[in-house]
């Protein structure tokens, strides 16, 4: 006999407003049916009715944990439509900022995942404290804590502040120490290992078949990362190596993100050594107006949650069609496949390991 329980849309562990109808046989999950759309606001439709420069602000709100990633993806699409080259120094600045954003996003994920596993907010508070240091750095550059609006076609809104490098390196040293500590803290905890290893297994074949992306795909042993397969900005010069784990379980996904944070720290340090002098300021917003009509543009970007893909048909003043593939959307569609057969308590560990942002799902 099976029972059905309804989880959400308001529930502490669904990271936003997600409704799951879970069919249970005792304590074992028979099926999970996600109901989404509680945050659907029609970004694609709104974007068709806004000027190019106005849309930058809308793109940031797609993924509010890592706003800069979409900011960058959209501006890159506009750049391609306008035929503008990114300045050499701006490439490095964007790489640095995007990687800092990735670290901040992964730190938030780490805290919330520990919370989902039943930890009483301790790691959550610690990672928030660390994340705040990065937000302060980004605030120094962009002037805002969350929604930066700092990407402009051809470059960024302004050059890095004078003591940015020094501060960043200091913060990175601190964060590297902390990450090692958290890693030690979690991996020496037998209960944590038991609750993540062998839970929510996604095989390599299924990961490709179901279209998993980002750390979920890499946790299943697929070596695909947009930063190395379709290198953009300074990633190929910085010697980026994609982080791959082969087990495909929650622990592998956790480990991929931890390794990614370390890789990001290494890359930012490397980028500060190689960053060229020169101009980095992009064009002012009033000039953003691609002249091409019906030019088709595709952009792939690796956001912290996975691969974002933008398909844009450019028109004169506003995009004729802006279609966005968001990583959380497709990662959530896996949930039924990987949660089947596990326990109810595991469902939240699995949800945590997928790192979902609900606005990213609902678009």
């Amino acid at each position, binding site marked *: 006999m099976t029972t059905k329980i309804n989880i959400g849309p308001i529930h502490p*562990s669904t990271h936003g407003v997600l409704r799951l109808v879970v069919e249970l046989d005792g304590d074992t999950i028979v099926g999970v049916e996600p109901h989404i759309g509680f945050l659907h606001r029609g970004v694609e439709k709104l974007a068709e009715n806004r000027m190019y420069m106005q849309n930058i602000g809308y793109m940031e709100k797609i993924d509010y944990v890592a706003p800069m990633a979409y900011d960058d993806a959209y501006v890159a699409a506009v750049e391609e439509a306008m035929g503008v080259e990114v300045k050499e120094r701006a490439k490095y600045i964007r790489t640095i900022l995007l990687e800092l954003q990735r670290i901040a996003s992964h730190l938030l994920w780490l805290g919330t995942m520990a919370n989902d596993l039943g930890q009483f907010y301790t790691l959550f508070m*610690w990672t928030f*404290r660390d994340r705040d240091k990065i937000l302060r750095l980004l605030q120094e550059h962009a002037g805002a804590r969350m929604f930066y609006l700092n990407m402009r076609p051809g470059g960024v809104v302004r050059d890095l502040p004078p003591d940015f490098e020094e501060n960043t390196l200091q913060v990175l040293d601190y964060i590297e120490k902390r990450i090692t500590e958290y890693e030690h803290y979690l991996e020496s905890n037998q209960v*944590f290992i038991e609750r993540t290893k062998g839970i929510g297994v996604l095989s390599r074949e299924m990961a490709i078949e179901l279209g998993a992306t980002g750390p979920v795909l890499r946790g299943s042993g697929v070596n695909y990362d947009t930063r190395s397969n379709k290198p953009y900005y300074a990633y190929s010069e910085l010697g980026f190596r994609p982080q791959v784990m082969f087990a495909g379980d929650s622990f592998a996904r956790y480990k991929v993100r931890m390794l990614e944070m370390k890789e990001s720290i290494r890359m930012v340090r490397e980028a500060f050594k190689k960053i060229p002098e020169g101009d980095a300021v992009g064009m002012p917003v009033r000039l953003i107006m691609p002249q091409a009509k019906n030019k088709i543009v595709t952009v792939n970007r690796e956001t912290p949650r996975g691969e974002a893909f933008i398909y844009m048909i450019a028109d004169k003043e506003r995009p004729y069609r802006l279609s966005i593939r968001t990583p959380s959307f497709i990662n959530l569609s896996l949930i039924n496949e990987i949660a089947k057969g596990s326990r109810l308590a*595991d469902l939240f560990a699995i949800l945590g390991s997928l790192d979902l942002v609900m606005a990213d799902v609902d678009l």
Partner: protein
Amino acid sequence: MLTFSISAIANWLVSLLSSASVVKQAEGLAAYAIGVAILIMAFAYFLGWLERKIIAKVQARHGPTVVGKYGLLQNLADFMKLLAKSNFFPKSSDKLLFAVALPAMLALSIFLILLLPLAPSTGIGNMTNGLLIVFALFAFMPLLIFINGIASGNKFGEISAQRSVIMIMSYEIPMLIVIASIGMLAHSYDLVNIVESQAHIWYIFLMPLGFFVFFVAMLAELERSPFDLREADSELIAGWLTDVSAPYYTLALFLDYTKMFLGSLIVVILFFGGWSGYGLLPVFWLVVKALIFAIFVMLLRATAVRMKLDRLLRFGWLALMPLALINLIVAYLLFVM
């Protein structure tokens, strides 16, 4: 267990009533009960404040600071506010059971503290089977949680109730085996005797394995992390407390700390030599030891990751059970020597 507990309590009551000085005893009892009630309230309130402060310090925060000096009045404000909020029973709930379960739990835990000897000459009479009676009554606690969970008519409450029953199966029996070995070492189930027999060496040194088993089982009983499966706030919202309305939640909060006081008292009496200590009042030593134990439990709450249900069952039967049996054998050898 149930029939045993009923017969044990009946025996105790009969012996109490048949003694000559019933009236005199009753007067003494009333005074004692009031004193202990004040102690419980003070301690529970203090624990509530301390837990917020300790967890905040672990989490790199300050905890309550504004209301009262060092935030000491924060919990009072919380309690008063919860009491003054409106009360509500959901339509799907069994109103009678839902209204009774939480007060019954609170009454039970206060009654249990009354039964414990807090100093050599206190406690309610000299009960020959005191330890057994305490644990027989203690076993009602998960049952009442079960009743509350089912009566709330909420699916999360129901799951929580099921978990409660499963947890009883996984830790109650090892705990009773440890109690048996304590009785063997002390040659008695009388709590006063147990404390006095620890005058030379505490039982934690004689039976470290037994203490471990007992500690784990006690954490599960107290719903403390990592065994807070019944109230798992990231899974079951609040488990059996999900549909409990605000005034009743005051009871739940109070119960939480009363239970913690009770649990630490039992652990101190059984394993840490009770009130033994130099100088000062015996009660002082008892309370200080209980406080240290409670702080340890709080630190555990701030750091541990919650266990899974099936894992808990396996842990109960494959780890706690053999350990408890080994402990019983050790105790038997000590008993023979």
